[in-house]
């Protein structure tokens, strides 16, 4: 399981990478492994819409299940990864790179403090087996 150390993690398996005031959001390697082959990704928002921490951000469907992705931070959506609608399998092959889901211009950087670092996330995942 990959867990890049420069990212922050949520208990619902999203990762956040802070790039200035922009939070890049995706799902973890652990999450994509649990889901298995991803066949569909849907972000029911447009650029400019409000992002609310803990609320639904996207739906990811695999051959096994459908899962909701939540916003790990609040703010305003600045970009949506359009590539995922035609190539959802990126979530399996490159969850921390090309398969970012949305970018959010964050309001309050302090919210990131609620998230886990890589070591804590690894421990959290181990505890779920």
């Amino acid at each position, binding site marked *: 399981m990959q867990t890049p150390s420069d990212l922050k993690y949520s208990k619902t398996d999203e990762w956040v990478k802070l790039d200035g005031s922009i939070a890049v959001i995706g799902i973890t390697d652990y999450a994509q492994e649990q889901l298995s082959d991803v066949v*569909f990704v849907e972000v029911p928002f447009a650029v400019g819409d409000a992002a609310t921490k803990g609320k639904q951000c996207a739906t990811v469907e695999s051959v096994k299940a459908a899962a909701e992705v939540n916003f790990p931070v609040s703010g305003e959506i600045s970009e949506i990864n359009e590539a995922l609608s035609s190539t959802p399998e990126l979530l399996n092959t490159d969850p921390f790179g090309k398969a970012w889901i949305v970018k959010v211009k964050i309001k309050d950087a302090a919210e990131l403090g609620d998230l886990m670092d890589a070591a804590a996330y690894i421990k959290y995942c181990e505890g779920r087996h």
Partner: protein
Amino acid sequence: MFIPHTESETGEMLKALGLKSIDELFEDIPDKYRFPKLDLPPALSEMEAFSMVQAISQSNESTQDLICFLGAGAYNHYIPAVVDAVISRGEFFTAYTPYQPEISQGTLQAVFEYQSLIAALTGMDVSNASHYDGATACAEAGVLAFHHFFGKRPRIVISPSLHPHYRETMRTYLQGYADVDIVGDESGVNPLLHPDQLVSKVDESTSLVLVQYPDFFGRIFDLSSLAESVHEKGALLGVAVNPLSLGLLKPPGEFGADIVVGEGQSLGIPLSFGGPYLGIFATRKELVRKLAGRLVGESVDQQGRKGYVLTLTAREQHIRREKSTSNICTNQGLMALASAVYLSSLGKNGMRAVANLCYQKAHYAASQIARVPGFAVLDDVPFFHEFIVHCPDSVEEINLHLLDHGILGGYDLGCDYPTLKNHMLIAVTEMVDKEDIDLLTEILGEAHHG
């Protein structure tokens, strides 16, 4: 399987409730209502009961006894014997929806064939495995459109010439969606308006425009300009069809429909007092993930052998839990099979022949009725096999008179449309012949003079 409670389980539950017997649960109901004396005749033997029930049923008059000109959404068509022969096979007849789909290859193949036939007939990319009936399929079209725009376009525009029952069912089905606003068929609206006039109701908050084709009155409109206007506003166009008419008419997929729904009863399913019927639901490929119900696909197994699988059930509760957008986990499997058998036994030419017979006979009937003094046929718009007749008296009285002569008259449009009082909707199928139509016009003439 139903497993009743054991005595010890019942005892446990009573103990938890602090009761001694089940009777105590019913103590709030006064004694005299708990066990009222029923005034029943002495018990009959099976043979006596059969004979009595048969005598009662013989006072019914069905479409086998009467000449039928009644339609309005349910039509009297000939059903080839092969339809019943196939669907009565035990493997199909008793099977319920396949919960372990891979071992139900026969059922899955039947559904796959059904889907393929419906997609071809409607000109759409995909069809689901069916819904309950035309009305629920219309409602599911509303649900699909609502979710397609993530609830951001809550307005649904429906034509007043969409079947009144479909409109009612849509309102019932969608009442739990707080934001959904169904407009277009308000009481002041002319029920006979051209569908292009619906465009004025379509705005940026509209998700779906739903029209019927042929419409409830049997009329055929070119819907291509409506499709364009609807798409300009970013909304989806839904078209409710009578699938049999597509043997003759241009399929909605060819003029821009995004969703095609319809009542499939006309495809080899008996009238049966209103059900079970068949809800047709087909869409463009882009909407396949929003498709309610289930979708069966053809595939190959590890050894390369052809097999059928439940490819998509993306909206259902067993995969989406509380986020599901449809609670229809079942489909009208047997009726879907009946329609698939009907379609394949008729073939393309047969479908065209039946549709053409209906069309020609209806037009002969309209031309004859138009000659009867006092009656007028509203034929300013092309129609398929159903048309509006303006009557000199109340439709109810005319129909009583027709019934005396063994004729089941048309639908009384005044029931649903106050401005169409004294207007009758007459349906003509391949099941009536020239003599039947001539008898109808003769009796109508008498009815007026008599």
